[in-house]
Structures are given as C-alpha cells and as structure tokens.
C-alpha cells in the first residue's frame, strides 16, 4: 500500500463522489507544489466550459493585479482546475485562487495547514492528511480549535446542504488526535500578555507611574491571574481550616519551637566517624603542597610530586621525592615545614607523577639546595565549626520541650502541622506573586529603560524617550539604540532598507543571495555586535545577511524587475513579498521621527519609495 494517496487519484476520487470543490491541507509548501507537479504530468483536462470560466475569472483578477498575468501556473490551473495556495505565493496570486474558489471554478486547492486562518474561502469538502503541524521547528499535535478551524471551511452556506471533512492517512498521522479534535470542545484561550519597551514608554508618556498598576490590572492577563488567585484562595481557606486544631499550645508558636528543638537535637548527635576532619594546620598547609614545592620533613627534606586523598579514609596524602632519590607515598602530616621555594615540575598522570626528565632535574635541585631555606608562614584559621550550633542553642537544657506537658502532642502533630503550614506559606506567596507579577515585570522594564537613558529617575520620558516611543515594533530597543549610536548617520536608503530588512525578517527558511556591498557587511557587523550586547534585555533578531543583501539590491538597482530579483535567490516569492512588506513597515516607523531625526526620516522615506514598485505597488 502506498504511504498516502496520490494527489491525482485523490482529486479523481473526490470528483467521482461529487465532493468537489475541496481544500486539501498538506504538511508543507513543498508537498503542495509537488502535488501540483504531479498534475502537470497527468493527462487530465477539464471540459471546455470550465476552462473558459477559469479564464474569465482570472482575467478579472488580472485587471486589478497585472502581475499575475505572467504567473507560470496559470496554464496548469486552467487545464486541470486545481491550484496551490500557500505562503510561498504572492498575495495577488493567492487572491486570484481565492476568487476562483469563491466563484466555484476550481475543483481543488492544495493548502498548508500552518495558516488555516489565512485560508479564508470555503469549499464543499476539506481533506486533512496530518494530525500535527510544525511550530517553531518542532511538530506538535493539532489542537481541537485548529482542527475545527480546518474542518470549518467545509460546507458553503447557500451552496451546500452538508460539508464534508475527509481524513486520509499519511505517515505521521494520529487518528485519535483528529477524531478527538472533531468531536471535542475547543480549548480555552489564555492571555499572552508581555510587557514591551514601547508599551512602557507610551504608557508612561500618558500616565504617571502611580497609575500604571491600575492600568495593568485591567489586562486580560490580570483577569486570568485573578481567576487563579481565587482558586488558590479557596485552597488556602481549606488549609487554614485544616490548621485550626494545631492552634497555640503551651507556647504560642509551638511548630517553630518544636522545629528548632528538633534541629538542635539532631545537631547534638555525634557525627559519623568517616566525617573526621583533619586538623586546621594540615588543612591550611594542603593548599601549598603543590608539585615542585620544597618541604621540610621530620627527617630531611623533599619535593612534592603530587597531592591526593587516600582511597579508604580519604586522608590527605602526598607523593614525595626524598633526598637520596627515593619516592615515598606518605600522609600529609609528615610535612613539618613548607619552604618558600618551588621548582618547575612537568606533571604526568602516572607513577612517578612527573616526566623522567623533570624527575632527574628535581633530584639534582634537591641535592644542590642550600642548607637554610626561607620558611613560608602559614596562617591557620582556628576552628571554623558551624556557627549555627552555638547560635541556636548551647545545650538542650535551654528548651522547655523535654519537660513540657504537651510534648507528646507536639511530637505527634508536628509532621502534619508543619506540612500544612508550609503549604499555606507557599500559597500565600503564589497569591502575592500572581497579584504583583505584571507590575514587577513592568518595573524591570522601567529599570532597563532608565539605565539606557530613555526614562529619568522619576520614570518620566527623557528627550530620547520622547522619540523612542514612536518606534513600536519588535526589536525596538535595538533600533533606538542604533539610532542613538548614530549608526545611521547619513545613511543611503539602500543600506538603511537592508539593515531594517535583516532586523525585520524572522523566518529561518534558507535562501541564497548575492553578497551585500562592503558597506553593508561592515554595518551589519556593528549591528550584530550591538544586538549581542543588548541580548540580556531584548532577544536579538536573526540579522540574516542574505535578506539584507537582497533588499539592498532591490532598493539600489531601480531597473531590477521582480522576476529578475526572484531569479537571484531561492527564496519563495511570497517570502520575498513578506520580507519587503515588513521592511516597509519598519521603515515607516523611522519615517515618523521626522522632527527629531530629519535626515534618517528622509532616508527612510526614500527607501520606501524605492521599494514600492512592481508587485509591491499592487496591494495597499
């Protein structure tokens, strides 16, 4: 059996069962394109009347968007009545396909699942071939909402009595996910409130800091946090009721009292013999017993070759080269003096723990040593025993507990009572956190903006803050910092557009492009350095050099046509369009800085004008 049905057979089956027009959702753009290619090879052709209808509708759309006229797929679409619709296509082409579907001229459209919301046209049948989609480089199961959104396109009001959602298996399909999604309730939605730098600047422009907390309290995020708080509070009430029987006894806070008593009692217990501590003198000396060090022994002198711990007792040990050339393994306590003299010693990983050459040298050095050597004074820290013991209590005699009448009850109830009390404290902390988390995050942003000089100590906008608040896009901090660093001093429009494109583009689909100019490469290097330095405060953009170079070419070379540009790269037309549209959006934000940064605004305006030609002119 084939792993999945062949697209041509699929459409043939749908046609035969009168289940067309259909939208067929496939995993990827490539799958859609391959499906189209398989039709190109097939012999199926539509009846003349339907072909004519498609031509008629297309002619209407071409009137509005002339760029479609030369689209390479037109012929195939007309011949077979099937089209692909995905983000790799130009918006104008997608509009054409949507129009064809709306007029009922096509039999099937292959679309990607990723952008179900972008597929805004109905059909009689929807075909689903997968149960998971790629989200941020990972495959996740479709949610019930998403499945219903897909299936929801089936059944056109006024044109169909029923709509059909047909599942056809492909590798990686999990039928349970789909049946549950079709029959289940859509998921609840959750607030995705984040505090952005432009938000902070714009709020502080309009409101004093004192009012901000009440504004944040109006967010859906806080509304949902409050719902969680309410749940926690009911739990807290329950816990408090559970705590009731553990009220004050002989002492008002018996839980703490018992806890301290228990701790003190445990500390009193003798330590295990293995945890024997070496004397402070030896401990302090150990730091100096490094390979090559000359030391004085009970008898004679020696040079340390290595320091280690014995296997069983974990006692400090050294390997010594003694006068006369003998090698000894001895406990560190054999060292009586540490001399202020070391020799180079090339360490090795096995006996004799140094290279033969340096062993030779060391033996010579040891023989040649003068009789008197300066002794290193070694400071020992007397007794660093845990101070807790004495700070809590010297003796257990200070506690009333051993003779207290409620001792039995305390001992019995303590584990449960202390657990309940911990729970209560944890809940109270979470409630506190839920109620103030937004405000804390806001304050963190204020601190950052203050450090960069967009806000003064009173959280009012500085002169820089006044214009920076007009940059209301992703990576706003990077862009405003670039402006302040005068990276865009007297920048040419192509270069400006290129940099903005690399900041704006957040797609990681690979593409290949001509290299950028030398100026662009240097500028991008600076931008990347700045972005990395800002990384703790703002996630750096991808800063792809290839999209920057492509944008530079488009702006600089006014004679370049869209098709010519598309030939320079492997990027899909739709991606190119989105890149430029987003770049124009970013540039238009720079244009608003006319009063404070006139030359930059002018450059941005020129860049926009230069970018807007060909297909980019067709859509508002």
């Amino acid at each position, binding site marked *: *059996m*084939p*792993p999945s*049905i062949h697209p041509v057979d699929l459409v043939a*089956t749908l046609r035969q*069962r009168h*289940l067309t027009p259909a939208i067929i959702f496939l995993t990827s753009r490539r799958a859609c394109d391959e499906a189209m290619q398989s039709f190109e090879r097939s012999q199926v052709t539509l009846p003349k009347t339907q072909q004519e209808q498609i031509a008629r509708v297309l002619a209407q759309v071409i009137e509005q968007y002339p760029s479609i006229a030369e689209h390479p797929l037109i012929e195939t679409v007309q011949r077979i009545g099937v089209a692909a619709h995905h983000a790799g296509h130009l*918006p104008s082409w997608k509009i054409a396909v949507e129009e064809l579907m709306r007029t009922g001229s096509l039999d099937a459209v292959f679309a990607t699942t990723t952008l179900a*919301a*972008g597929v*805004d046209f*109905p059909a009689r049948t929807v075909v689903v071939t997968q149960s998971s989609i790629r989200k941020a480089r990972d495959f996740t199961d479709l949610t019930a*909402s998403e499945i*219903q959104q897909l*299936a*929801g396109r089936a*059944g056109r*009001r006024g*044109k*169909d*009595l*029923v*709509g*059909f*959602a*047909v*599942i*056809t*298996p492909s*590798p*990686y399909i999990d039928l*349970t996910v789909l*049946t549950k999604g*079709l*029959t*289940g309730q*859509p998921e*609840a*939605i959750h607030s*995705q409130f*984040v505090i952005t730098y*432009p938000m902070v600047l*714009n709020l502080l*422009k*309009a409101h004093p800091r004192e009012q901000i907390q009440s*504004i944040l309290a*109006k*967010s*859906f995020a806080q*509304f*949902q946090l409050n719902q969680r708080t309410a749940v926690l509070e009911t739990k807290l009430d329950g816990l408090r009721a559970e705590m009731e029987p553990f009220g004050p006894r002989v002492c008002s806070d018996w839980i703490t009292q018992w806890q301290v008593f228990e701790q003190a009692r445990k500390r009193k217990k003798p330590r295990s013999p293995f945890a024997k501590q070496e004397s402070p003198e030896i401990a302090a000396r150990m730091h100096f017993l490094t390979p090559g060090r000359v030391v004085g022994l009970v008898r004679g002198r020696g040079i340390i070759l290595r320091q280690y711990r014995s296997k069983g007792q974990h006692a400090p040990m050294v390997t010594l080269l003694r006068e006369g050339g003998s090698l000894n393994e001895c406990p560190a306590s054999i060292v009586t003096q540490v001399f202020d003299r070391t020799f180079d010693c090339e360490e090795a990983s096995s006996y004799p723990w140094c290279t033969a050459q340096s062993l030779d040298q060391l033996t010579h050095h040891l023989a040649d040593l003068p009789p008197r050597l300066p002794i290193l004074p070694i400071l020992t820290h007397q007794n660093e025993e845990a101070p807790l013991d004495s700070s809590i209590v010297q003796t257990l005699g200070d506690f009333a507990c051993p003779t207290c009448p409620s001792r039995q009850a305390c001992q019995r109830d303590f584990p449960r009572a202390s657990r309940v009390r911990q729970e209560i404290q944890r809940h109270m902390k979470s409630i506190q956190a839920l109620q103030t988390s937004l405000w804390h995050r806001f304050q963190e942003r204020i601190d950052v903006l203050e450090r960069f000089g967009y806000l003064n100590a009173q959280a009012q906008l500085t002169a820089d803050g006044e214009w920076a*608040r007009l940059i*209301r896009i992703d990576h706003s901090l990077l862009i405003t910092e670039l402006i302040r660093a005068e990276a865009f001093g007297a920048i040419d429009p192509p270069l400006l557009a290129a940099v903005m494109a690399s900041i704006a583009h957040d797609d990681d689909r690979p593409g290949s492009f001509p290299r950028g100019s030398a100026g662009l490469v240097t500028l991008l290097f600076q931008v990347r350095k700045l972005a990395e330095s800002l990384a703790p405060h703002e996630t750096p953009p991808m800063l792809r050099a290839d999209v920057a170079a492509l944008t530079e070419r488009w702006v600089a070379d006014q004679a370049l046509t869209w098709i010519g540009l598309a030939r320079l790269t492997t990027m899909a037309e739709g991606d190119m369009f989105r890149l430029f*549209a987003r770049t124009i*959006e970013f*540039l*238009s934000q720079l*244009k608003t800085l006319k009063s404070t940064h006139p030359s930059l605004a002018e450059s941005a305006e020129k860049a*926009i004008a230069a970018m807007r030609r060909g297909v980019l002119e067709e859509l*508002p």
Partner: protein
Amino acid sequence: MTTHELEALLLQQPVALLHRLARGRISRHFRSGKRKLVDLLLQASAENRPGLESDLLALIDERTSREQATPASKPRPAAPHTRPAPPQAGQRPHKAEEHGHHEPPVSLHEWLSGLGVPSPQPFVPDTWQVEALARLAETDVVVSVPTGSGKTYVAIEATKRAMQDNRTVIYTSPLKALSNTKFTEFSRLFGPGQVGILTGDRREHAQAPLLIMTTEILRNLLYDAAGGEIDVRLDTLGLVIMDESQYLADPERGVVWEETLIFCPAQARLLLLSASIGNPQDIADWLTAIRPTPCSLIRHTKRSVPLRAGYLHPNEKLTPLFRTAGIPYGQPYLLHPEAKRLFAEYEEETGSSRSR
C-alpha cells in the same frame, strides 16, 4: 508484575490506549504499529517500570469506569435483556457493545445522501445574528461561533447602523491579507469612498466612515491619542469590530489585542468576532469588568451547514469516519468499524515498512 506479565497486559490493550500511554514517553509514537509500540514502551521505561505500570492501570481503570458509566447513563428500555454478556477480560471488546450502541453504523450511501445544492432561499438571518445585533444596541458583544457561521453578516449590519448615526467604524483583522480582502468586499458593498484602509505607511480614504486596519495600527492610534495627539477619528468613533479575536491568545501578537481592548475609547461599542473558543465567557466577563458598558456573549456551537466526517483509504476506498452520519460530539470513540479496520490495516502495513 514481571516484564512478561506487563508485556502481555500491554498487548491486550487497544492501540489508542497504548498511544495515550506513549505520549511523553516516546516521540512520534504514532509511527509504529502495536507490537513495535509495546516494545518501545517497555524499552523507554526500563528505568521507570513502576511509573509505566501505574499509568497503565490508571488508564485501564478510567476505561472500565467509562464503559460502566456509559450504558448506565443511557438506559435503553427497548432492549435491556438483549445486551450481550460483558466481554471476557483479555478479549478485545467490540466497541458497539461497549458503549451500548445498537444501531448499525451508517452506510456510505446514507452518509453521502445529503450531498447537494440547496434550493435558493431568501436570506433570513439566524437567531443568533439577530440577537447579536439587538444586544449591540445596548452593550458590547462577544461572538463565538463556528467558522463559516456568518459572522461577517453581523459585522456588515452593525456597520450600517453605526454609519446611519454618523459614527466612525473601525474594523480590525489580524492579517494584512484579510484586511485587503475585506477592503475589496466592503468597498463593493458600501461604495468605494465610504471605506478606507490604513496600513503601516499607506492611507487610502483615511477620513472614510469605515476604516479597515490591522490591530497593530489601531493600537498605535490609541497610543497616540493617550499621549495627547488626538486623532479626530477617535472622537466620532462609534464601533470597533475586531475580527478573529481568538488572536488574543497568539503568543507573539496577543498582547496587541489586549492593549487595544484596554485603551479602546469608552464611547465606542465593541464587537468581537471569534471562532469557537473554550472560554468566551471569560472574555465577556473581563470586558464587563474593565469597560463602562457591560458585555454580552453570543455563543453557539451548531454549524449552519452540517458537517460529516469521512475516511479515505490510500487505495481510494471511502467510508464514513464515525458510526453516525453527523459528528458525534463528545464521543470520539464512536468510529465506524470499516474506517477503524482500514486504518488499523494502514498502521499495520506502513508501521512495519517504516520500522525497517
């Protein structure tokens, strides 16, 4: 439980249960057939055998309790004594008996029978559409209905009414492409001069009574208004329509929807159009809490064109997906026996070929 016992018990379970068990333990577990899946499960939880056992037992418990609950909650007095004896343990029970469904599964012919074009009828708005419009006269409205129910009709009617009162209407959509589609559609409907579109830097008919923009643009307008740069359009603003407002939960852009709703001028009515979501009441409650006017919720789950689900085998065989012709809401296990058989066959074959 020894490994052999565990293996035997796992092999007795239906594949669906094994998949549930495999979730979080094995990635891409749906690629493998049953036998392979059991092996993988045992392999993956070699270190945590008790965890696997307890999860398995919990799933079996849940299953048996549901099986007992379903027939009890749906007594069928017509044939109480014909119910077959409870299936033997270890033997895979038949789903139909399990859930007390005695009707034969729908045939392909029946399933396809509704297919066709309805006779043209004069347009009559649905009750929910009428109700939404009526409520909008008094309160803000959140609409949460399935895709394709006719939300646009409500938007158009509400716009007409606001325009009659000489109020400005702002219509926001999440995607530029949708804005463009709506711009074309509304221009056709209201006349080209009546509709404007605002994007990042382009303004067409910016003074028109109906303005279409992305939500980001509206948020920026509201920022400017709050900062003291009053935009005339906001003075006469009577209605804000937010299409696809389930974008409120979009990880990247959701915050813009929240900001827009928080700063939306008090005198403007809000109309939120959303696909079916799980908690529309929360949104309505939230808006009631933060805005001077209360907010009503219009919600229904019934599709205006009924939906049927089918299964198409790679060998071009088409069968209904569920035992019933329509979608059995809340009962995902009511699979059509034929679809189930074919899919099991598919998993069996492709699973083995893929594990090579």
